[in-house]
């Protein structure tokens, strides 16, 4: 595969046409082609969760999703989670002062938002089972759990 192809993606409600290699992970199309840099690269190997976005409303590793497999499924990135950073998860994240370096947080927030959509009243075990898919080298883990609990209570 040495040649690029054209693909049209539905991102944060808008159609975007890009010319990239078909095996390009969605992550890099978002970050570098479309300059939506809120979604982060951490491992490229489904290990850290920094790259999590929503595809059809579900949490997905954008580093594991080649652009050729996205099709017309709608994608939401951290930039599109809410128009004004007032999603209950974002509010809870600020209230609990979760981010430290902040690098892992877009992915964590997207995972938490997807979790709460599926399961609005998660137990602590539910939260840990889901959020432990994410690595945070700053160790914000306990605040993440507290923030998801707060968001579940309404922010």
């Amino acid at each position: 595969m040495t040649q690029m192809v054209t693909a049209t993606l539905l991102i944060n409600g808008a159609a975007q046409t890009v010319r990239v290699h078909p095996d390009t992970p969605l992550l890099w199309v978002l970050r570098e082609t479309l300059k939506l840099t809120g979604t982060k690269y951490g491992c490229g190997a489904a290990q850290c969760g920094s790259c999590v976005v929503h595809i059809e409303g579900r949490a997905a590793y954008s580093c594991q999703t080649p652009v050729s497999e996205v099709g017309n499924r709608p994608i939401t990135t951290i930039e599109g989670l809410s128009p004004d950073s007032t999603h209950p998860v974002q509010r809870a994240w600020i209230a609990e002062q979760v981010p430290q370096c902040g690098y892992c947080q877009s992915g964590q927030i997207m995972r938490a938002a997807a979790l709460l959509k599926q399961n609005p009243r998660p137990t602590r075990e539910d939260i840990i089972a889901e959020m432990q898919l994410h690595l945070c080298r700053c160790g914000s883990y306990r605040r993440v759990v507290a923030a998801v609990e707060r968001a579940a209570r309404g922010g």
Partner: protein
Amino acid sequence: MHKRADAEHHPSRRAVLGGGCFTLAFLLTPGRQLRVMSARAQPTTLSANTWVSIYADGTIEIMCPTSEMGQGIFTSLPLILAEEMDADWSRVRVVQAPVSPAFANPVHFKSQGVGGSRSLRGYWMPMRLAGAHARTVLLANAATRWQVPRAELTTEPSRVIHAASGRSISYGEIAAFASLPADLPAPTEADLKPQSRWRLIGRDVPRVEVPSKVNGAATFGIDVQRPDMLYASILRAPVATCPHPLYTQAVVIGPTRIDDRAALAIEGVTQVVALDHGVAVLGTDYWATVKGKQALKVEWQTGAKSERYDSLTALDEFSAIARDPSRKGVARGNTGDVAAAFETAARTLSGEFSSEHVYHAAMEPMNATASVRDGEVDLWSPTQGQTWARDTVVKTLGVAPDKVRVHTTFLGGGFGIKTEQLTTAEAVLLSRAAGKPVKVIWSREDDIRNGAYRPAAAHRLEAALDAAGRITGWKHRLVADSVLLRARTAQLDQFKGFDVVVMSGAVTTYAIPNKHHEFIHQDRGIPLGYWSANGAGLTNFAIESFLDEIAGALGKDPVALRLELLGEPRGKRVVEAVAAMAQWDRKREGTALGIAYSDGGEWNCKCAQVAEVSVDRRSGVVKVHKIFAAVDPGIAVQPDHLAQQIETGILFGLGAALRERITIEDGRVQQANFGAYDLTRSRDVPEIEIKIVDTGHRGMSGAGQPGVPPVAPAVANAIAALTGARMRRTPMLPERVQAAMKR
């Protein structure tokens, strides 16, 4: 709160705001003086030294001189200046400072950079004085305008008040006409607010940049975009060398033969550039450069010293050297007559400990973006060392320092690795070669395999005990490769070969009359670097584990033994506090407690921790249920940040204690990604209880590292208390715990 935080410098902002502005520039000097370099109203261009700018609309811009990497410095340093100038914090805008001597940290090699928990220690007094001086200037201007004595004026946040006449004026209004009074004396400590009048220091203030970290807006180095920018992916030699661009004797292993035909056939790849230490694939599309890198065929030079290095074999060799009295190293901080203490001892004990390499694993991998054009250089970097970054550009390209602009972005974690400058050299070389801006991104695999790791270290400790069971003599020999040799050779020479980074915490402050601390350097060519808490994470594991063994041999309680050995009250208080928090004397069912204490060495933050653990006896898996930590940092500028930093340190230390390790065979790092490098995750996180103990100490310390050292020994001591098995090596992997229980 409407607070704006910018990790980028915006010289154009003045033009946008208009309506007047008053700026103050200072030079921070070691000690307690501060030189006002300039002060002016309505400048047309931003002075490179401006610390604080007051705009007519009431906005106050305060520089953050160093890097925000998660430690909250973007809030806590400007807040100190704001406190003393009595600024309305809701109108403060924090701006990332450029590289300039005006922003250098007096206690950090006189440079800008974050490390060694030095930011608060270095900037605390100068920034307070700067703030106080800014306030004095504002008062003086109001006094002149109103024709009243300055002594009759007071301030409320961002306002000057004349109570006698009921008048008040905002800082913004003053800025519109302010000038620097000619007769103003230099600020002194007498100008500072008493602690009772602090409005910001010691109260928890939300971090200024947090809102930008929940919506993707915060700009990290890897996010930088420049018009017409190219990307670079770089293939480096398979043997770990990570050459440091500022180290003149760096071993550089480069390509001998490059076949780049397949790479160049990939659409989006524009160029392949041979570097001294690697081969770079440049392109207009990042993924194209990744594919191009995979398509390269490269043969490499051989002969790196590190190519014979096997990390586990080396650790056994280091242990044998530590044990062999004929092998001599460099001693420092010795006291008394150690030989006599051992000759006259009623009894002697010894213990051996070791630690494997660990890696930083900052979630943002190394990266840098550079634009080299017409002899002018712009570098955007998530760097912990902006002055070193500039020096690297100067050395790499041979340009003058004033041609280099370093733009510090937010850092997606630092922990020491982002003092490294290889990406700086790569980005500027490639931008020059391409004639365009270039962003260099290291893949996670690049980042793991080209790290500058924490040293692998082996220790032998010996204690001499008298007939009364007192410790009269202490010997600690540590064998490891050097961190300073590669990063700061001059500092290694300054201490005559005693690597103060590796030996951090080795010179124990316990009240033992005769002490010997020795570093035996084994130069194996492996790239080593600063890693959170540095050697203190190694030495504290050895010292505090050995102390528990001594307590066991003497039949003493581990807490009591430490209290006996602690000469100074701060350490005593934190040990007592943590023992009380953990209910040290209460027996547990199925779990046990272990304690460890770190005096915080240079960063001067006392920290004692108790770990409560259980062990699955079949698998050897250790479960840490809870960590109790008591800390005395002196003044806690932001108590919530402080607790957060201690927690970060605890989890950092816990990973290295239990599961993280880098293994190297034939000079090749065996781990490639997080699948093989086992970081702590949510499910592994214990309960954590942190108490800030006010012992009356009013000094400053750093919070980034003190949480790290006591974790590993506290866990090891708890395992020993529960099972009788003494863990002598980190990480304490399940198979090692099993083996120790069988002994």
